[in-house]
């Protein structure tokens, strides 16, 4: 009774969770484009899209993707054999146990007339499938905790998944093991199935079961003589149809052997039943938790793979793209392939912001999509992580769930800019990609985040506009000079005697007839002001951010001043200062 209550409750939670999760695919939005599309429009567009796809020739593509990518996981196999083996073990073992063991009152008898769980081949296969899962879990643990692939982050979600699977498997084996040794179980069976038997017969049968079936009896202990066993075997004739030798369930039998010294005590407390409760409750817990756990990817990853195989960013309905992008968040199983392949992943070792790694961006985007309240600092970190990307598409190509990660980053970036927080990475060639995508963006909004960032780092230029400003006698912070990264290059500014060669060689300066009005300080003036430690002047010069890094200044300098290198370092310092200012 309790079993069924527990089952129905967990099924109900699973069902509600599933409905809730699916509803989020249509309710949540990612990026600015999706904001204007209503939930009902998205549901209708999805239905229409699915029906039209199923009725078109695209169904062949879907079939191909289903077989190659969903069932056989060819993409994972090509990337990493060990990972593929891990996944295949868990996935195959799990499916087979689910169908033939968990559902053994529905599916198995329908397929096999003579199904009986304690008879071969079923007895053997159940244990074999279990061992296959254990092998998969062992590879997973090995990969995550021993192999330590760089930038492969393990989250709480991964650990929960491994723990639940481990509890189910271990309790299953131990349950069977203690059942084998249980004298009470043996007596129950004898009572139920032996109709006519005298005491002698029962004793020989018990001897036989102690010797051959692993039962631990309080009354009888081996070794037994051959005659007893022979008689026992005759008595066993009544049982033989329902019981193969337990050795065939090799892991359960091993568990029985291990727990044998404690078998009588375990039987007294009815450990087998307790373990059975643990086993099915863990299964039900897994079932109820499934829509919220990484196991949910068994539904969502195939959906994402199939959807991406037939969708085209140019032609698909924007409503469906919006829905697919939220679905993709659930399709991520946090396998970490993207972060290992990420071309800027290495930067994480210098700038410890988790959001740099693609696999860790997903949970952050989930948080944003959920509309949860997030601190300003966290939004800054997410925005920085999203922008620190060279748009090489490695993550998208690598993703075994077929998630179009690159498009996710792009959309999230643009919508984050609306929150009004400066992004200093915008002042770098990482912006080239955004520039190339300019025509796909809202033209009025396009320059806003850049200008905001510029103003945040360089001010509005008031300082440089004051022509009659009196210079303070006390120069600025000396420590800033030493915070420049490379003493050799950055100290060369002191060799500058303001001959203006660098400014004359600068293509940016020569682009303007009134350069000072546009860029604030010219390169030679920056060198000079740096020497005088007039930091507020230096860092308010827009020249720093209009510098191409083309090294013409440095190449032409007759004094060996590493002008461009000094400018680079000043930019680093300016950004560090601006970030500090923003954090306080």
């Amino acid at each position: 009774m309790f079993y069924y209550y527990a089952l129905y409750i967990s099924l109900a939670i699973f069902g509600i969770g599933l409905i809730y999760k699916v509803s989020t695919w249509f309710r949540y939005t990612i990026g600015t484009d999706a904001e204007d599309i209503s939930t009902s429009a998205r549901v209708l567009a999805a239905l229409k899209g699915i029906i039209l796809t199923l009725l078109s020739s695209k169904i062949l593509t879907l079939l191909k993707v289903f077989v190659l990518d969903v069932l056989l996981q060819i993409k994972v196999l090509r990337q990493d054999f060990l990972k593929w083996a891990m996944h295949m073990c868990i996935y195959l073992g799990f499916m087979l146990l689910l169908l033939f063991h968990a559902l053994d009152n529905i599916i198995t008898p329908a397929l096999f007339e003579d199904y009986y769980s304690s008879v071969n081949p079923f007895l053997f296969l159940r244990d074999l499938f279990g061992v296959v899962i254990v092998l998969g879990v062992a590879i997973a643990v090995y990969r995550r905790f021993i192999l330590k692939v760089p930038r492969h982050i393990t989250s709480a979600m991964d650990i929960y998944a491994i723990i639940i699977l481990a509890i189910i498997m271990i309790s299953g084996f131990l349950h069977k093991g203690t059942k084998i040794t249980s004298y009470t179980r043996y007596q129950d069976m004898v009572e139920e199935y032996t109709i006519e038997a005298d005491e002698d017969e029962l004793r020989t049968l018990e001897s036989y079961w102690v010797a051959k079936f692993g039962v631990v009896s309080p009354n009888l202990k081996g070794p037994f003589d051959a005659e007893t066993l022979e008689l026992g075997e005759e008595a066993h004739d009544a049982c033989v149809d329902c019981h193969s030798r337990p050795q065939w369930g090799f892991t359960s039998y091993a568990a029985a052997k291990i727990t044998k010294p404690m078998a009588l005590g375990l039987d007294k407390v009815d450990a087998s039943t307790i373990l059975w409760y643990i086993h099915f409750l863990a299964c039900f817990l897994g079932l109820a938790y499934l829509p919220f756990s990484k196991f949910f990817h068994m539904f969502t990853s195939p959906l994402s793979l199939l959807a991406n195989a037939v969708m085209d960013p140019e032609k698909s309905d924007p409503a469906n793209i919006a829905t697919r992008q939220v679905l993709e968040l659930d399709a991520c199983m946090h396998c970490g392939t993207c972060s290992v392949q990420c071309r800027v992943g290495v930067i994480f070792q210098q700038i410890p912001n988790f959001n740099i790694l693609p696999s860790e961006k997903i949970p952050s985007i989930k948080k944003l999509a959920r509309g949860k309240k997030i601190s300003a600092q966290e939004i800054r970190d997410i925005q920085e992580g999203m922008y620190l990307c060279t748009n090489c598409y490695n993550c998208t190509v690598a993703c075994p769930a077929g998630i179009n990660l690159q498009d996710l980053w792009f959309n999230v970036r643009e919508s984050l800019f609306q929150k009004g927080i400066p992004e200093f990475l915008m002042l770098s060639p990482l912006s080239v990609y955004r520039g190339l995508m300019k025509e796909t963006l809202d033209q009025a909004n396009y320059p806003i985040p850049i200008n905001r960032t510029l103003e945040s780092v360089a001010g509005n230029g008031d300082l440089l506009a004051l022509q009659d400003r009196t210079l303070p006698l006390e120069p600025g912070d000396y420590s800033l000079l030493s915070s420049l990264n490379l003493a050799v290059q950055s100290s060369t500014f002191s060799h500058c005697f303001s001959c203006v060669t660098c400014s004359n060689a600068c293509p940016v300066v020569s682009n303007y007839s009134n350069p000072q009005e546009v860029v604030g300080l010219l390169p030679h003036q920056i060198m000079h002001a740096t020497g005088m430690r007039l930091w507020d002047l230096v860092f308010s010069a827009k020249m720093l951010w209009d510098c191409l890094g083309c090294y013409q200044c440095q190449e032409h300098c007759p004094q060996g001043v590493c002008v461009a290198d000094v400018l680079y370092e000043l930019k680093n310092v300016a950004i560090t200062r601006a970030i500090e200012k923003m954090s306080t």
Partner: protein
Amino acid sequence: MKFALLRCCPTPTVLKQYELSSNAVLQKLGIEAVDIKEFNCCGYPIKNFNFKAYVLASARNLALSERENLNLLTVCNCCYGSLKHVDHLMKDETSLRKEINSTLEKEGLQYEGDIEPKHFLQVLYDDIGIETIQDMVVNTFDGLKIATHYGCHLLRPREIVQFDNPFSPTKLDQLVEVTGAKSVDWLTKLECCGSPLWGVNDELSLDLTENKLKNAKQAGADYLCVVCTYCQLQFDRVQHILLSQRSPEYQLPSILYTQLLGLSLGIDGETLGLAENQVSISEIEGFLLHKEAS
């Protein structure tokens, strides 16, 4: 000749023709290019933001190449400039080297400086040599005038990149003339293409690009010829935007050197991805003279 080839981040998506044409030409020249799966971004894009992260990124690529005992080949000036700069810093700055190597060590890597980062052009000019290439040319261009654009990080700072004379370089011009094309002298040949500011200060970036296009056109060039990912993005994709928004009169298509050389080595236009260019270069095949079979 065998190298580890560092592919530049934007090439697989927005500059496929560079991958196609460099693969084809490398193969034709008998250069074996090894792809190291773990390679990362060269760090160039974050030099403004965090210098040490920039150093770490390039140092990791150098270390990966060194692990395979291969020189590191690149077709992009920005990658090249970064790798040369970091190679130099890792050799000269002891404390920086220690710091970076201790980070790399977490992955079992370190950089000792036993290999050399090389630009594709350097391999062509210094390792293979003009004469050998001359012998391999099957088709020559006739009457084609090219404005060569070296790009900043191939030339400057000279003591670090050590490729050519930074004030009057000739190597790319010679390599262009091997194909029968004529290299024209032009005013802003050695200036920046404007790419570093694209997406940051678009107007300034376009000013610089426009000025270069104008000067090259005035010198009579039919095409620009480029040896860098970012320069080509600027002269092709950004020029495409420039022509539609600002100054259609300055249209001057830009061809990658690997495409130009590829054509004269007898590789077909499709293999070289000519059609991928946004400002069309398809007419360049009209300048080709096919050598008589002798």
